């Protein structure tokens, strides 16, 4: 698995927006927001190989 190279323009800013988006949501609404966000981002990436690498990277991080 190749390393996913850092490419954030503003990592802290994104992280803050992500947390703010979940503020006040219960567990179910939060899960739905995450799922919806993943699909929007996946469409933005588009490239099939990049998407496969992203899923693989997430699975491997979880196993550490």
């Amino acid at each position, binding site marked *: 698995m190749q390393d996913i190279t850092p490419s954030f323009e503003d990592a802290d800013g994104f992280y803050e927006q992500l947390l703010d988006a979940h503020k006040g949501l219960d567990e179910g609404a939060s*899960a*739905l927001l995450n*799922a*919806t966000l*993943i*699909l*929007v981002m996946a*469409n933005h990436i588009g490239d099939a190989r990049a998407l496969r690498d992203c899923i693989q990277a997430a699975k491997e991080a979880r196993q550490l």
Partner: protein
Amino acid sequence: MTAYTDPVFTNGYEFTTGAGYALPTYPFVPPPELSGTAPESPYPVVIVGGGITGLTLACSLAQLGIAAVLLDEDNTVGVKGASSRGICYTQRSLEIFDKLGVFDRIQAKGVAWHMGRTFAGEHEVYHFNLRERDDFKLSKQPAFINIQQFYIEGYLVERIADLGHVDMRWQSRVTACTQSPEAVTLSVTTPAGDYTLSAQYVIDATGSNTPFHAWCQSTMTSIKRDDRWCIADVRFKTSPPAERHTWIEAPFNENRAVWQHLMADDVWRIDYQMAPDADPAYVSREDVLRERLARQFGPDTEYDIVWVGPYSYKSQLLDHLSAGRVYFVGDTAKVVSPFGARGGNTGISDADNLAWKLAAVIGQQAPEALLDSYHAERHEAASVNVAVTARTTRYLRPADGTERLFRDATIALAKRYSFARTLVNTGRMAEANPYTRSPVCSYAHPLVGRSVQNVAFQWANGDDAQLNDLLRWSATRVLLLWFGGFSRREADKLQALTNMASVSVVQVCATSAALQAREGIVDPTGQLAAACGQQRWALIRPDSYLAAVGAQADTALLNRLAVSLAIA
């Protein structure tokens, strides 16, 4: 997570009710084996099972002049008391039926549709119009026609009777199958007694409950599904719009899926997704169905129930599509969920793929190795169809938890953003499956291994024609199209080819004045050349698949021709 008992797999019809359809019946004629006048040598081909796949194969062989016997345990088309099965036929299937001479009847009876709408709750998620799709426009056949399966089967039976060569034996049930290296022997039970007959090749088209898998010790991969449906064929006094409607979540069906599509005779097929633990007898009861219909169409809608029955499905793929001299086609090769009309339509393509190969081998135009390519090509197609339908199944019957969460996300997004509509999977419609690794295709161009649409051209005298006319004329020979003029040296090479029994050579020019060869056609719009990849020559097989293309009349042409017929 709710635990459910395993559903009983059924495409059987023990719970069916409704007025049903009136079906033709065919007479039992005592076969020559029972009067001692049977031929001593094996029949070239025996087809077991007169469903849409078996009949398509029988009709193809009849058209190619191959003597065959068709054995069917029933005396009618459809399944007794349950005649409503497949309803949606793709352009590729319609092209095959055109080649066999039954398309005009299908077109006259059936309903061509082009608008599809998908709903979730009260909202339309998206719609499509097939008339706006360019990829269906080259063919003379429309994108889809909906028609009850038994109509096509009935047309094929009558066409086979007209063509001759195939002996259709009704009420003839196969009870055993044994084989030697030279022939297959079948035991047959009939109302007039039992007999055995032998064949060089036996084609198992008996459907998903085939006894041949056990007889041939065939192995398979199988996935059980717990998705349950109730299927209703309904004739309305006032018809809904002539569009295909699908609900992922229908408010009038406890937020489960509903399919609504039209067929011949103003009959509508309405499929209701049921709870996985639903009782099949209960959901198919007439009063229960009427309640459901009232919720969908309003309490005052007048209609007749033509047919109703429960339905559940499994997914199954045979590891090898032949066993010795027995070949598996249609539902004996694979079973898929119904979404995308990938069951019947791929059975029709199985038959189209196998028929010309059998005819070429029996007519000694190709070695028996050509038949091995049936597995190579149609197993790839079956694998794809199993995988594609499995994805749809997972969308329509998501597991509780994350799978349902993501589906909810796609629906929410699709209402607002067009990109998300590509994720909404209510069935990916069947297509002519490409063969990407066939041993009888020479992959020098992206179109090789793909089906050439039934494009129009003109005969040398200016009369309109289509590729199917050329394929019918060429019969079991592969078709070599030579595009444009040729030199003296090229003429000599092509002349040598025209003397071969296994190939027909046809020159294709933009005008009739430019034709030099004895067999020539005119392609004024250039669309035949485009469909063949704009090459100098193209090899089109009798099933309209492109086997090879090339730039010169050289040894590569001869080699690729040999490869296409498994002459290695």
